[in-house]
């Protein structure tokens, strides 16, 4: 990964588990497109706490991940770091994911915190949602807060 890009889109999840595959599917969509040079797309996989290294040195970071219980009717939503980490695990475990990472971020980040957004995909994943999430993440990446 190049740490030079100041705007990073980080797709999180497990492509081998359908209920957690939304992030990797958006990753596949984004890397098939021609993106502005100052934006990099990262396959964050199951990195959990190790996502911290992708945040260092960025001005703006957009995470894409499957979410639960934010929009019961399903769809694509945008969360800030506080909302996304509000219900994170209190104790660290190997299951600790993006929410734990975002909660501990202010304590461990070196330098100015980047803008953080989470594009959450709720409910069954389909092509429309993947395209919507990809478009929304690119729009935030280029224009900032929606």
């Amino acid at each position, binding site marked *: *990964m190049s740490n030079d890009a100041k705007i990073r889109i980080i797709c999180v999840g*497990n*492509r*081998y588990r359908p209920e957690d595959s939304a992030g990797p599917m958006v990753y596949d969509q984004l890397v098939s497109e021609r993106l502005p040079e100052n934006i990099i797309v990262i*396959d*964050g*996989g*199951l*990195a*959990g*706490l*190790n996502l*911290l*290294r992708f945040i260092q040195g960025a001005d703006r970071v957009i995470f894409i991940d499957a979410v639960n219980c934010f929009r019961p009717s399903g769809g694509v939503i945008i969360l800030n770091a506080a909302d996304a980490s509000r219900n994170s*695990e*209190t*104790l*660290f*475990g*190997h*299951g*600790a994911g993006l929410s734990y990472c975002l*909660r*501990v971020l202010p*304590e*461990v980040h*070196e330098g100015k915190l980047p803008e953080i957004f989470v594009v959450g995909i709720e409910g069954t994943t389909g092509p429309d949602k993947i395209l919507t999430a990809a478009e929304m993440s690119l729009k935030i990446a280029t224009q900032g807060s929606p």
Partner: protein
Amino acid sequence: MNNPRTKIITAPLNRVEGDLEIRVRIEDDRVAEAWSVGVMFRGIENMLKNRGPLDGLVITPRICGICSTAHLTAAAKALDAISGAEVPSNAIIVRNIALMAEHIQSDMRHGFLMYTADFVNSAYSRQSLYDEAVKRYEPFKGRTVIDVIKHTKEILETIAIFGGQWPHSSYMVPGGIASKPNMNDIMQCKYLIDKFASWYEKRILGCSLQRWLKVQNGAELDAWLDENESHYNSELGFYIRYARDIGLDKIGQGHANFISFGQLDLPESSKVMGRNPNSHFLIPAGFARNTEIEPFDQQKIFEHVAFSWYTDSNGGQHPISGETNPYATGEESEKYSWTKAPRYNGTPAETGPLAEMVISQHPLFTDLVNTVGSSAFVRELARLTRPAELIPAMQQWILELNPQEKFYAHSPNITDGEGFGLTQASRGALGHWVTISDKKIKNYQIITPTAWNGSPRDTDSIRGPWEEALIHTPLKDTENPVEIGHVIRSFDPCLVCAVHAIQGKMENRWKI
């Protein structure tokens, strides 16, 4: 359940790789019986069948977000064996450094983010050291917690530099590695290793690596602790004091059988040497009953499924001919886990850093196991000090890399055949057994460290390692059985631990 002093506690334990549950029967405030229940079937082994021979390099690192380098190592070594590829020294060193980077970050995070999180349990609020423990280990705030997160995120950069991608890198291939690090890459990695080493010495040990490595037995460990304030107040010093204070040296012994598959091949002409001069690994392979070590032979590994939800095999199967045929109809009577039960020469064995220390004949841990026995305290002490065994080799190997030499030797085509790749993941012995037929994967069997440590009973109804380690564990408060968490976590089982007790129709839930 008529005895008022008897009750059953079930602990659902979640993890990346799947889910586990620990069920215990308590009699007279002690654990009288224990069952380790794997509650999730994943089917990775079956998913690999009929795919191309190289697909294991891509799929198996995704088994676990924590130890993906170990799975990649095992997958690559299995294909090295099948293809007959000879791996150049440069590639051996890169593979080793990446695996060691994964280990040392995992050891620190497990120790100070997971294991010591139990030290601030309310059960210990009256301990004299409790307030200091809170300052160090409180989730999200403790100064040790924050410091460990900061410093462990950097060391993993080495894998990203060598692999070009992290996590879930697939740069190890039969015959070496796919990347070709230049001198700038190597110097970057050297800087990261040296920086981690400096922090580990200052914060974790409170002394130099050389001083720590002079500790040869239990008496010298006590002398080291009291030698000066730097030792006494270091993270290791505080761990020793607090763990003994709450009695972790008296619980969690287990079978005292240990297994290591061996790891970190020694390249030709390297100045790095392991503790065992006869081993071609830095950390040797072996099996030990207490500290009596036997030569390791992978042919003696068999997986049993008598108590696992798979179709029965007569007495267990060697993994090269192993099968993963789920069988859970609700009518299987005594079966209770999706985890198989690996056994070595018919015997359960624990694996992990303590097993590595024992089989390496590390003098301190040999003495501790011989004199006071293994325990939750000793098991975690081995994990917290394992980086001291690895860092000097990392610092030497990074200097031995030569960017002018090969990192990949053209390997023959992967022909039909059988092979296995054995290594040590951060939590212990990891093996991939692979059969290739008609240029496709015919069979792929994986035995993970948690399968060893968290196995259910075998064909002879012998408990698995952490089932055994729980027996006789005293519980001061059965409503807050934090001692169960200490014992299970000392094996580093990748678990988020929550316990609920079932008493008839009542169900109580609490965290440990």
